[in-house]
């Protein structure tokens, strides 16, 4: 699967996205991609906060 995302990584990436988008030289044509990334990071954290199953399944699978 995708490389191991952690809360710390997700948070840092989201913070980076916010900085990028707050930068005035932001290109509009990359906006859709950035929105998609931000949504995925937030969804990841929100889901992980409320379900421990993923973790244990991953452990079992290893």
């Amino acid at each position: 699967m995708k490389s191991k995302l952690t809360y710390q990584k997700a948070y840092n990436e989201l913070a980076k996205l916010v900085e990028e988008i707050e930068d005035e030289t932001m290109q509009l044509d990359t906006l859709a991609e950035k929105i998609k990334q931000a949504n995925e990071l937030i969804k990841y954290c929100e889901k992980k906060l409320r379900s421990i199953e993923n973790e244990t399944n991953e452990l079992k699978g290893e």
Partner: protein
Amino acid sequence: MTNPQKLSELINEIDATMRMAFAGKTFWIKAEITDVKKQPDKRWCFLKFIEKNGNIITAEMKAVFWANTYSAIENFETNTQQIFASGLEITCCVRVRFHKRYGLDLEVLDIDYAYAIGKLELERKQTLEKLVRENPSIQLLSSGNYSTINNRTQLPLVIQNIALITAPNSDGQRDFYTVIEKNKYGYAFSITPFLTTIQGDNSSRLILQQLQLIQSSKQQFDLVAIVRGGGSDIDFKSFNDYNLAQAIALFPVPIFTGIGHDRNTSISDLMARQHKTPTEVATYILDNNMNFEQDLESLRDRFFDVVDDLIESAKSNLVHYKQRIKNLSPQTILQKGFAIVMQNNKIITNPEDIELNSEIQTLLRKQIIHSTVTKKTNDEK
């Protein structure tokens, strides 16, 4: 051997001698206590006083607390926050008694708590000094707190995988689980219990073993919680143990202690992150995760505020450009009464290009005027 005495005659004589020597007298003695047998229902306590030279017992005598002085034990426990149990050295006031059947013993009349407290404080001070002296990573701060590898280790953003050291079926365990499992945010946790006796003589060694188990476990833990609850205000001894405190100070995973005490801070507490009760440990964990979620939400809000702004400003730019383009369009110009001059289907911008007697077309709002050039003059404006 003539006329042997009856046993009772000899004992009477001993009794009389003892009375003569000790009747009405009390003595303050300092001794270690052992074989302590408390009978709280009857409010009696049997024990032995001993004195040692190295490991050899050099003096020993039975002793007893009766109901009228049993409260001295309870006061001792409340004031010194340690259980009145074998191994303690105490200072107490005694009376020498001789019973014709049960023999010689000491009746304890009072205990000097100040002595016990002073001794405990000295031990505590010595342990703390030794920790700092022998472990360079443990530092005494000017605030009186201690900085250790353990309490310097940064807490993870989210605490979800918890190793819980507690006594089986204890109030502490129950309180901790209740708060964690009934959290209103719906956060999920994985709690792995490491159960052991957490009170009494051996417990510091047993807790230490559990820490070693956690460290060698394959599972990755975000946090270790050591909790003890349910009113027991005494017996802090195990948490002041040098080896346990040292292990906690050096432990790589952050440790929260919640060993149920308001008034006192054990040495183990000082080496870790102290919370007062199991409930407070659990509440802190929930708050920690909630703070993360709030930070996440504020980042999300910031992000989408900017997105909204960007889209909004792009939209208004578009409207602006549309207007400018419209203003510049030939149609708009013609509406305003200007004309466009053309020749051979080309717009003429340079009047030099137009020759006398040639045909030109003049575009007005709705019609094209065809004409022949008869004269060219310079505009004198």
